[in-house]
């Protein structure tokens, strides 16, 4: 059994605190995705888990063992490095099979496993190449291959698909998912791709500035972000925010409004609010729909047509920039006036401390 437990983990590089007390329990077999802005400490946390970075303070348990001082090779992990770290003097096949070579696995077993990995990664024809003769995406796949050949208890993936094309990425996602089910291994996965995070994760952990902001099932994070940061971070394009003032509040609903916005009622307990409080209102671009009598009056700035959907950048009367994502390929001209509407259940409110009023207890 190899669940993972992190107790108040901390890490500093000299004077720079990078991980500022992370508490996390990961069950055996769970697929956990770390997301967070660039430089927030995801890789560092992974490297601490792997034993490559010493733990400044706190405890790291893998299974029943306190692992702070356990050697990486005894932790039963495999890792895909963000920087790949391929052995440049070995061929792809040798890179794949290196851990097995080290473990003195029989030659046939090694060859079989290497071939399996190559098939999964669609790299059979490249097995004899050296890393320097590969494209960026191919190198990244070698890095993945090296990890999956090992079949460890715990996988650590640091942005393993970032340099792959969309189709391959979908394939790999499936393969990793399959692998996860087959091996029943614990996986910790860092990604910046929202879809990857949403589709792969049993649980998403949102990190920011070395701290856990929120963790939970993907859809819960999307629907009920704990705070402004998570709300802004999960979902792409980003949620639209605007400052609003409380016009009235009672136990079941709050009415807010601002210069930009006609007053709207949000079904929400407003017990702790006073009229005049400043809140932040958030609406996801996806929930906005064009509606000739919609409350949001905007002027189209820029239209990005993705084919299946259309991203509309529009400006409110006050000059605030908002986004709306409309289904399908919609033709709008720059400068055109459009009205948008949203259902009140899709509106989120955040307190002055940034916490989501709907979930804050």
């Amino acid at each position, binding site marked *: 059994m190899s669940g993972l437990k992190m107790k108040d983990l901390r890490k*500093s590089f*000299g*004077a720079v605190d990078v991980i500022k007390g992370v508490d996390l329990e990961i069950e055996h077999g769970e697929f956990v995705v770390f997301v967070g802005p660039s430089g927030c400490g995801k890789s560092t946390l992974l490297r601490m888990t792997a*034993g490559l970075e*010493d*733990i*400044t*303070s706190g405890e790291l348990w893998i299974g029943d063992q306190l692992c*702070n*001082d356990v*050697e990486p090779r005894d932790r039963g992990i495999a890792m895909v490095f963000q920087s790949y770290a391929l052995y440049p003097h070995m061929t792809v096949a040798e890179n794949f099979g290196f851990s097995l070579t080290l473990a003195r696995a029989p030659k046939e077993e090694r060859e079989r496993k290497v071939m399996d990995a190559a098939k999964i990664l669609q790299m059979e024809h490249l097995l004899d190449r050296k890393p320097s003769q590969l494209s960026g995406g191919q190198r990244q796949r070698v890095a993945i291959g090296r990890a999956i050949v090992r079949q460890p208890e715990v996988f650590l993936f640091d942005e393993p698909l970032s340099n792959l094309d969309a189709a391959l990425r979908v394939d790999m996602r499936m393969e990793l998912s399959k692998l996860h089910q087959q091996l029943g291994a614990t996986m910790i996965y860092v990604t910046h791709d929202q879809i990857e995070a949403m589709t792969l994760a049993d649980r998403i952990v949102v990190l920011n500035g070395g701290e856990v902001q929120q963790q939970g099932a993907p859809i819960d994070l999307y629907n009920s972000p704990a705070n402004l940061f998570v709300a802004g971070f999960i979902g792409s394009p980003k949620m639209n925010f605007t400052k609003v003032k409380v016009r009235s509040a009672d136990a079941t609903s709050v009415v807010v409004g601002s210069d930009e916005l006609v007053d709207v009622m949000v079904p929400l307990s407003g017990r702790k609010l006073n009229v005049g409080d400043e809140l932040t209102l958030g609406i996801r671009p996806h929930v906005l729909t064009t509606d000739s009598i919609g409350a949001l009056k905007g002027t189209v700035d820029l239209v990005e047509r993705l084919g299946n959907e259309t991203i509309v950048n529009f400006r409110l009367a006050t000059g605030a920039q908002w986004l709306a994502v409309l289904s399908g390929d919609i033709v709008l001209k720059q400068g055109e006036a459009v009205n948008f509407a949203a259902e009140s259940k899709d509106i989120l409110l955040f307190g002055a401390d940034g916490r989501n009023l709907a979930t804050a207890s």
Partner: protein
Amino acid sequence: MAVATAGAVNAPKKSRVKDRQASMYPIWLLYPAAAIYGILFLLPTITSLYYSLTRWTLFNSEFIGFDNFIQFFQEPFLYQALINTVIFAFVTSGLKVVLGLALAVLLTSPLIARDFLRSVVFFPVLVSTVGVGITFTILMHPTEGVINETLAMIGIDGPGWLVDRNLALYSVALVDVWRGVGLATVIYIAGIVSIPADYYEASRIDGATRWQQFRHITLPLVRPAMFTVIILSFIGGLRLFDLIWTMTKGGPGFSSDVMASVVYKQYQSGFYGLSTAGNVVLFVLIAVLAVPLNMFLNRKVVTR
């Protein structure tokens, strides 16, 4: 050291750093080397330090305190030898560091007959000191030597390279550079080929000329090689006597004597205690110059 201060900030970290590194890079990897080096070099060398305090004929030794050191410092031309030593070391290592780099850059660029040229440059390293010594005494002959004959052809009256008291040391230094630059060159070549091509590509895009590439990419990234060359040739220069011995025997007169040749002469004369004392003095001199240099250079190595 940097690590010590970093550790001081955060006490528990230090021990962990040690533990983690200890498992990755365990100290027992050093044992075989340490055993050979410690037993066969350090141990006898350190025991021999005792003899610097004795009058020692190899057959008998008699404790005489610091008399050897006193006598050593009374060597009539010691001061000049000291100056010569330092000059020699700076001139030879300086030239090797610079010329070696130039040659290495040349010999790593795509050239016809590059392998041949590399061999040519390395060849002097292979020739025994005796051969080098004789060859250059002849080539440097003031009137009949090829060097001066060539100079005469272009109207220059060549100097008496090895026979001029003011020049002999420098002439030997030049020959030492001739002999040793090949060594520096191969070290540099190893350093240059270890620089990933990416950086050159990036700098070409950034608009670097050949010279700027050298200045901003090669030079900083070849530092490991350069520091090796600096340390090895500097200490080598301070210690060198074999070439001086075969070419001038410290002469004319005492003009090209260096510390090491003074010590060597004492050894040749059978003054074993005295020469051990001389070695100790020389060792201290080198240590005073080289150890800080080494620490300085170690700190400047770029790690990737």
